[in-house]
């Protein structure tokens, strides 16, 4: 009796699974990937933060999600994060963000292109889906000198200014102080008299 029940259950499961298989054209995961530069100024040899957001807008989870950004050539140093990362499983309506910090080594115009994302849709399929992120587009990488001219705190300049402004303040003060000391000495001697 129990065996037959178990068998029935198994048959039911198989049927359900096949029904799910039949529904599968509708049920798939769909990833949208945006790649954004978070910096206001992209400057040579200074950090640039790049944010990848992966959204699953499908109705089943995306599995084995791999994000790979091969768009940074030899002109960039990866300072933080990885340009090739495995994001694992993204549930439906879920999202994952990933950031990378790079440092451009040269200035001039640079075309920031798309990152690549690969994943499998649902639990069972082996077919690898391949997608590309949005492109931040061509941006200007400013030379460090130009950036420094506009935004540096000018610490050295201020220090030099401080040193240079010491003598014209100190000399009159010393003159005044010596005369005051002399006067006070006179007063003291009078008082003591």
């Amino acid at each position, binding site marked *: 009796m129990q065996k037959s029940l178990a068998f029935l259950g198994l048959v039911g499961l198989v049927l359900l699974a096949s029904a799910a298989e039949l529904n599968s054209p509708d049920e798939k995961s769909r990833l949208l990937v945006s790649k954004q530069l978070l910096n206001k100024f992209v400057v040579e040899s200074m950090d640039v933060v790049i944010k990848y957001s992966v*959204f699953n807008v499908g109705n089943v989870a995306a599995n084995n999600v791999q994000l790979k950004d091969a768009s940074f050539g030899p002109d960039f140093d990866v300072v933080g994060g990885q340009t090739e990362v495995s994001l694992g499983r993204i549930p439906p309506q879920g999202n994952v963000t990933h950031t990378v910090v790079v440092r451009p080594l040269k200035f001039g115009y640079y075309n920031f292109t798309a990152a690549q994302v690969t994943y499998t849709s649902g639990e069972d399929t082996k077919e690898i*889906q391949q997608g590309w992120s949005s492109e931040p587009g061509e941006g200007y990488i400013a030379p460090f000198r130009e950036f420094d001219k506009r935004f540096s705190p000018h610490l050295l300049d201020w220090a030099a200014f401080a040193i240079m402004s010491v003598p014209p303040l100190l000399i009159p003060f010393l003159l005044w102080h010596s005369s005051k000391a002399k006067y006070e000495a006179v007063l003291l001697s009078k008082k003591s008299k």
Partner: protein
Amino acid sequence: MVFSLKKFLLFLLIAFPLVTVLTQKNYLVSAEDDIDVDDDTVDIEQDAGDEVSETAVTEDEDATPTVTKSPDGETTVLFLKPKPGLLGPSGSPELHAGKLVEFLVGFTNKGSQGFLLETLDASFRYPMDYSFHIQNFSTLVYNRLVKPKEQATLSYSFYTDESFAGRPFGLSINLGYRDVEGKPYLDAVYNETVNVVELEEGLDGETFFLYVFLAALVVLLLVLGQHLLTSYGRKPARKQQIERGTSQSDDVDFEWIPQETLREIRKNASPNSTRARKSKKSAGSLSD
């Protein structure tokens, strides 16, 4: 030979001014004509032109239903800002006035040949009649090739103007793309009525400074009140002020006066003189 040259020169002398005058006259006439035409038609033609362009737009919309989406191209749209899904508390899509709207458009190539995603544009339409454009946002050119069985994401963002608050708009987002043969397709990625709502912000600059001003007023009133209360509250017992001059200070320096002069002053000091009083301190203070 010489004769012919002379003749030629004469001919030149006559012909050159004639030609120049004629051509100049021509130029002058034509220039005047141009100006006249412009002046006459400016007022009338501008209106006509507007009407023409408007009708042209609507005609265009009506005339191009043939450009549709490809069966092999599948698009999805995801709004990131103001919030994913865009649904407000009322259950209908909402945008926030004066704020950034950002969305992603995903394209899946299900076919066996590539597609070139060319442009993406968004526009606000009149919700009753989608052929009536209220605001067109810029058409971004992407030119991205999507290979067979691949997907691509495009991002687009625009600002809604603050003056649009509280009105419904038909938001229409169109993706224009071509297949490898150059056949154009147009996919209306999003075509729904959205409400532009004004965001209730906790504290903006205006109200903040209003409160600061009110607080300053309250403080001022308090200070004034306290001042009034103290001045009415107690009548100060006025002490008689007596001017003593320098009679009580004993650090008056007489050293600079020669001794004989000092002696003379002390000798014939009048009782009214302060110096005299100075010289006989105790007597002076008593007399006052």
